[in-house]
């Protein structure tokens, strides 16, 4: 039985559709109820919905053999897992944004508001820039407006939220998309099933691209 952690929400539904198309269906998942675990014994799969940011934890700790997580989560938490496929969905980018009139004064410590402290730290470390991380859990966009920070490092999908808050993108830190990950130990004992899943999903991903 292959345990698969899917991210709850729109991305998870898209991901499940890919798995179903690849030959790993579990019709009960489409029933309208509040269940979180669904099993198709015949196909040897058990799906469960978890919070998107928790998928990597479920996989790293072996509660799930495989799962789908955003590259942002993988870069932020650095779980010790295999990253087997870029699914090419849930595409967006991690970007540095600031007010339109922002000027980066290299003589000053840059105040960076973000939910993704590690990504921001690594990005500025590679540029040798002295920064002060302000870790926030949401509404990051208002930090520069209220003078809490000079810039933000956050996920940008369409850019609408930034625009509505008079912010502009200054740089792309890294492109983001959904990745198929696997527990390293599970892979040793279920490599046939996982390889089959990767091959089938890889085929359908390639066809779409």
């Amino acid at each position, binding site marked *: 039985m292959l345990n698969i952690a899917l991210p709850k929400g729109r991305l998870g539904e898209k991901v499940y559709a890919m798995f179903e198309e690849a030959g790993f269906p579990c019709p009960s998942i489409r029933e309208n109820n509040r269940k979180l675990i669904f099993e198709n014994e015949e196909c040897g799969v058990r799906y469960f919905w978890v919070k998107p940011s928790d998928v990597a934890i479920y996989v790293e700790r072996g509660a799930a053999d495989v799962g789908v997580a955003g590259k942002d989560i993988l870069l932020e938490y650095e779980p010790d897992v295999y990253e087997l496929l870029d699914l090419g969905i849930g595409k967006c980018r991690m970007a540095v944004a600031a007010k339109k009139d922002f000027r980066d004064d290299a003589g000053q410590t840059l105040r960076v508001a973000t939910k993704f402290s590690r990504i921001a730290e690594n990005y500025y470390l590679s540029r040798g820039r002295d920064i002060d991380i302000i870790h926030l859990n949401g509404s990051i966009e208002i930090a520069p407006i209220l003078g809490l920070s000079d810039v933000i490092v956050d996920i940008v999908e369409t850019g609408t939220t930034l625009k509505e808050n008079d912010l502009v993108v200054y740089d792309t830190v890294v492109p983001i998309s959904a990745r198929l990950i696997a527990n390293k130990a599970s*892979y040793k004992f279920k490599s046939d099933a996982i390889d089959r899943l990767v091959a089938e999903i890889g085929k359908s991903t390639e066809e779409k691209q």
Partner: protein
Amino acid sequence: MIPLSEQTGESMLFSLRSLYGGYGYSRYKMNKFEEYDLYAHNKDFLISDSVITFTDGSGKLLALKPDVTLSIVKNSVDSANTTQKLYYNENVYRVTKGSRNFKEIMQVGLECIGKIDDYCIYEVLKLALESLNQIRKPNVLSVSHLGLLSEVMDRAGIPENKKAEVFRCIGEKNLHELTAVCTAAGADNGIIEVLRRLVKINGETDTVLTEIRSMLEGIVSPAVLDVFSRVMSSLSHEPNLRIDFSVVGDIKYYNGFVFKGFAEGIPTGILSGGQYDTLMKKMGKKSGAIGFAVYLDTVEQFIRKSEEFDVDTVLIYDETSSPEQIGKQLREIAAGGKRVLAATSVPQQIKYGKLVRMSGGKAE
């Protein structure tokens, strides 16, 4: 022999010690403390870089050891002609991933230091396989070779400062980023394909070895490829051995064989080791070294047998029974190996299987 599923950390420790002793490894007992400088200079070698430090009476900065290998290397005899074989079981103090708190971790392992020939490598890999078999079945020992990977990268023209990133991709079996990173580094397409194939390798040792030889001949130095082939061929009959290049280590310390052991039902590696000649050189030693550590705390965490009850029977007595009668009754119930708690009332927050009351010296 105790069945594998019922082994405790202590019985596993006993089995492993006797296994290593049987191969002529002698016990290395170390002090709980070590000078902090040793760890400060080799921070990347440690699994977690947080170390508990304190100042002793003479003002020297000491640390509660977070690692055993560094101390063994520091105190080893530097000889290129002889081989020292040591095993240890020590508690180390580390911060575990995702936590800020230190944990005391029981670690067992062995080190082979000095002249490292094919037999030494074979023996250490064999002992790693045996250790896994003593701990839990089914298991897998995944073996890789950093020297081979590094030479393929050199051949591909990947600059030194990009190697760590390429190793990360290999360690994640992350083919999409491996291709992107290598291409961005200006690597040769043909060699990128070789790296991709190496990462994907999976199968019986013999078959895979032939594939690896034909893939790498002319790309890496024959000496390195020959050692890898010879050692792996000599172990090819081992059913739990896998060649898996996704096992990587820090090239600042490790050079040749690196390996990791896994057991079904345990989500992380339970054994980890490799050849660390580069660390030896860094610490001013001329000889080679290979060894591994077994993480018994991880094993115990996942295979401990959880009891359904705190005690099997609670024997409730009152003042009408004499101590002798109560003792006799308890021994009778416990005769079949049951755990019996004698008390005047059922203690709170205790889970028990059966309740027996006795009065006037007799069980009701």
